[in-house]
């Protein structure tokens, strides 16, 4: 797997724990959603904990855990399945401040959509990373200088720019 952050391929500081693997006492681990409750109970309150969730997860199922989570990874079953974008928005709206990760066969051309919806990092399989190298991901972040929407992250809003131009 390759991990992209701010247009660069980086080392992953987190480790995805297989369901049969025992929970380590320390270290940044990502558990599956069914194991989350157990992990919350046994780990120290300040232990780094992440969870990977399907893109159809009801955000209310995660609300109580949000302050304890350092990372939420949303899996994209197909790059054309946009449900993860809405789930990311809803988790940010619910106040999640940690790392939000999109995991799946996303392509570089979706990078700014993901950032706009609140994702920090993108995790893609190695074969995809070979075809779509770091340069393409970096370039994808800089295609547009501004966007038409308000309230989405990433680029400046054209509406805001017009508003301040009208004021000045």
């Amino acid at each position, binding site marked *: 797997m390759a991990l992209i952050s701010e247009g660069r391929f980086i080392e992953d500081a987190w480790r995805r724990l297989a369901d049969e693997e025992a929970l380590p006492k320390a270290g940044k681990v990502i558990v599956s959603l069914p194991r989350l409750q157990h992990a919350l109970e046994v780990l120290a309150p300040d232990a780094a904990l992440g969870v990977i969730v399907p893109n159809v997860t009801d955000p209310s199922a995660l609300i109580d855990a949000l302050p304890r989570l350092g990372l939420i990874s949303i899996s994209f079953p197909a790059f*054309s399945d946009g*449900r993860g974008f809405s789930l990311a928005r809803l988790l940010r709206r619910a106040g999640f401040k940690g790392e939000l990760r999109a995991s799946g066969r996303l392509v570089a051309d979706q990078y700014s959509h993901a950032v706009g*919806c609140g994702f920090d990092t993108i995790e893609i399989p190695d074969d995809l990373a070979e075809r779509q190298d770091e340069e393409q991901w970096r370039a994808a972040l800089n295609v547009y200088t501004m966007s038409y929407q308000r309230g989405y992250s990433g680029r400046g809003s054209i509406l805001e720019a017009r*508003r301040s131009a009208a004021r000045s």
Partner: protein
Amino acid sequence: MTAVDLRVAQRPNAPLTTYRYDEYDAAFVRQRVAEFREQVRRRLSGALTEEEFRPFRLMNGLYLQLHAYMLRVAIPYGTLTARQMRQLADIADKWDKGYGHFTTRQNLQYNWPKLVDTPDILEALADVEMHAIQTSGNCIRNVTADHFAGVAVDEIEDPRPTAEFLRQWSSLHPEFSFLPRKFKMAVTGAAHDRAAILVHDIGLRIVRNDDGEIGYQVVVGGGLGRSPFVGKVVGEFVPRHDLLAFLEAIMRVYNRFGRRDNKYKARIKILVHEKGIDEIRAAVENEFAAMDRSVFAHDPNEFERIAGFFAPPPYETLPRDSQLLRAAKLGTPAFANFVDVNVSAHKIPGYAIVTVSLKPIGGVPGDATSDQMRVLADASERFGFGELRVSHEQNIILPHVKQDDLLALWRMLDAAGLATANAGLVSDIISCPGLDYCSLATARSIPIAQAISKRFADMSRQRRIGKLGIKISGCINACGHHHVGAIGILGLEKKGQESYQITLGGDPTFSASIGEILGPGVTAEQTPDVIEHLVDFYLAEREEGEAFIDTWRRLGHARFKDVLRREGEDGADI
């Protein structure tokens, strides 16, 4: 100086009759072209597989069809300037086969572009403030509007500022670009619906409440295709202040809960149908209540800025009725027929709205050659403040013509083969491209339209029949809107043979209804006969002033079914 100021300075006499890009719009569209150029390069280099490239080329209007690529150019809310129309003509000559096809969604399609040329075509479009963004793909499509916007006598408010506002909001939306399926919106601001808003994913009707405040009736879940539905009201009165937030709420509910397991059940109409409108309304209202609406709050200054571009052109003060026109009609019967059929009332005294039919007898519905496009551009500048519209009936509208000028305009159109006096008549047929072009099609539609049109070639007979909408689709995806044709024709394939299923009683307006199937399918050869017999039956049975659909509603479907049955007894194999 902004781009708009610059434009005005360069052409001080040019009225602002449609939206003009500012520096931000211009930069955005150029960046979109650059992105697509890079996507094509990466596709050719193998960085993108065809499967990965597909949604991105579709979101730039590029389809892979039966014989070639097809590029669908957006004509937002169907409004064009003369300069834009000339550029469309030049593109047709330079990169296509010298013609274009105007569609039922007010767009223009080129049927023969090469993949490698498409970035240059998009660049040429950007030169005249046009694009092909979101004319295809599972995203919010080009927003359509009443083609008589701003000039209709029955209008509460011009729907185009709203449509332009939505065009911008939906362009490359970070969250709603990978929806379960395509998403179409239409806006009307008139008492009579010419935008078919009840058969769109979202239909917006501008209304005024008891306090005189402008707002929107929001309809959701209409659509044609293989499962046609008339939309249902999800918001009875949404104030302008809340429009964007309300639409975001609908889109989020759809993006999360719309079906993705079966592409034929993925449109929002199926979600509305399966859950029921009450459950959908509750979900939308919950989402609306939960979101931070401040970021979507209406910006009156921005809306006014956009609305300003649609200000009325500098009309002259004229008498309501033109004496010149009256005299010309008496002197030239062919012109009189044209005026009676193709000219509509204008809200300004002494002016008229002219429909230029792209349905010549025996022609391809919606096609225009590059020369005809240039004639239309010239005509709009000579007689109509340089503004043109595309109607969802696949015709071109000149929205502000002085009644005094109608004769000169008619002569100019007639010389270019553009004066067919059949707007709204039986030969003004809506048709999809069908099996002649489309890879989805199961049957031909253009040749059927041509055969019916030839059958009714006698224009005096057409005028006797009166307004009658025939709509033809070459497959169940219903691009030809056959479900809402007073007479609908659906081309299917049965055991290797084309078979045409006829429906009656469709209606795309506020009294929307889906047509009912007449009986077993008929062959391509039989179709014009059956249509003719149905029309003759209507003529024999109609009461004074009764339209086809009214006669059908009064007599009932069974009486019309008998016509088809008699057809079978005549020896036809149906």
